[in-house]
């Protein structure tokens, strides 16, 4: 899933304090799972903002809506008849949702309410970690199912570097060395000899380097 984290409320207040009617728009997908932008967080943020502006003596109407998704036209259309009532929207969806919302409602200011962080997993309640950087050309088949692009601080395709110590990365003792994990798993799979196969220069044109990307599938297009 896409993992996001809450923005500091002070930052959100700064963006919206000049308005009078603001919609807090949640998303029922990834940001709900990572507890940053679902219905629950929309409620908490809206209450906190109401309290803040009340204390400031400012009249501020703050409403709450949480959509099924903010990355699909059909769900964003659900609020078309209502958005005119607001001066601005704070979207708690990931950066994708914020942008799609902005694209759809050309004259409506839309502000991000979360920081979009990475593609990751829930390791346990309250702890999410990165697994993928969407490089567009998956090499997991060569690295025992563990991604050095997203999990090695230097994205070394032929690691580990000389800083790997007791299974941890040189930049933090909290962080597993991706190449230690790869070596451990290659051993578990009985494929440690594969370690010596040099992974060639990567084609990064499918990554950020190639410019904005798209996937076009004629077979499923209507």
């Amino acid at each position, binding site marked *: 899933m896409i993992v996001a984290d809450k923005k500091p409320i002070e930052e959100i207040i700064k963006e919206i304090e000049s308005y009078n009617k603001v919609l807090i728009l949640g998303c029922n997908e990834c940001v709900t799972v990572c507890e940053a932008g679902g219905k629950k967080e929309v409620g908490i943020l809206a209450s906190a903002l109401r309290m803040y502006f009340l204390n400031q003596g400012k009249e501020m109407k703050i409403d709450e809506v949480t959509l099924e998704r903010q990355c699909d036209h059909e769900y964003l259309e659900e609020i078309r008849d209502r958005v005119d009532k607001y001066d601005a929207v704070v979207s708690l969806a990931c950066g994708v949702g914020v942008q799609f919302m902005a694209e759809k409602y050309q004259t409506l200011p839309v502000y991000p309410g979360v920081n979009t962080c990475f593609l990751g997993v829930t390791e346990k309640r309250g702890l999410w970690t990165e697994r993928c950087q969407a490089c567009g050309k998956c090499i997991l088949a060569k690295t025992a199912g563990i991604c050095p692009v997203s999990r090695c601080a*230097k994205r070394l395709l*032929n690691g*580990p*570097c000389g800083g*790997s110590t007791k299974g941890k990365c040189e*930049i933090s003792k909290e962080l597993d060395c991706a190449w230690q994990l790869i*070596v451990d798993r290659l051993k578990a799979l009985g494929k440690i000899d594969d370690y010596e196969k040099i992974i*060639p*220069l990567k084609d990064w044109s499918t990554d950020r380097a190639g410019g904005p990307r798209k996937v076009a599938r004629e077979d499923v297009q209507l």
Partner: protein
Amino acid sequence: MNCKTPSKLEKILAAGHLAVTSECGPPRGSNIEHIVHKAGLIKDHVDAINITDNQTSVTRLCSLAACIKLKLMGLEPVLQMVTRDRNRIALQSDILGAAAFDIFNMLCLSGDHQSFGDCAQGQNVHDLDSMQLLQTVRHMRDEGKFLGGGDIDRPPKMFVGAAANPFADPFEIRVPRLAKKVAAGAEFIQTQCIYNLDKFELWMKMACDRGLHEKVCILAGLTPLKSAGMAKYMKNRVPGMDVPDDVVKRMAAAPKEKQPEEGIKICIESIQRLKEVEGVRGFHIMAIEWEEKVPEIVEKTGLYPRPKVD
């Protein structure tokens, strides 16, 4: 042994001599006289001088400019190049820049993570890794081609090296990793600083068992300790560094004013012992901001005078 490049370092190794290299870190400014001074301290006692490339990710005068300066002084630089700060366009371009000034040695590294340095908020590049940089230089030299396939007018003639850290984890892949670097094109290796000689010897033996010592010239890396504090710092704070307790104790047992002397003594004893280890083809003495001690170390280990080669 035929030489593939005009590198003096390659010639010395090919002639069967124990090679001696050292390194100088460029200054935090544009006064290149600092590097001229440092090089002057060691030039008669080493065969080649590595110039570090923004080591520990702290911004410094660039390695290439400092190497050119040494070359113009008639010295033999080893251009260190990390993949952290340049993409494949810049790497190839800088290799050509070095080649234009007849810099004949290069050390291919990934580089410390930028979070250690003075621009912790910067991006890192890592378009290639150190292994792929080795492949790139060898491709440019041996095929005379760019990565993009075009012909290079006057290809670089680099003697190509890599680093190896026998002390990092996981230990069991440290020799396979060396093999991988050799397969990628490494012709010489400069190792991480050696304080745990037993572990280094085990790594060397495993490398020799695979015949790697015949495919690549391994220079053992040494850094003299200046103080017990430095020993403890290296032990506890520098990732991938292995400083055994007895080394720390030995440094701490010396009175403070005698600790530098003790550090030099340990370094000299280490070199003496490692000279006898199969597969060790020379020494890379990294006297960090202590270049003036290199001549003493080289002389007291019987590595002086340095051999002359054509």
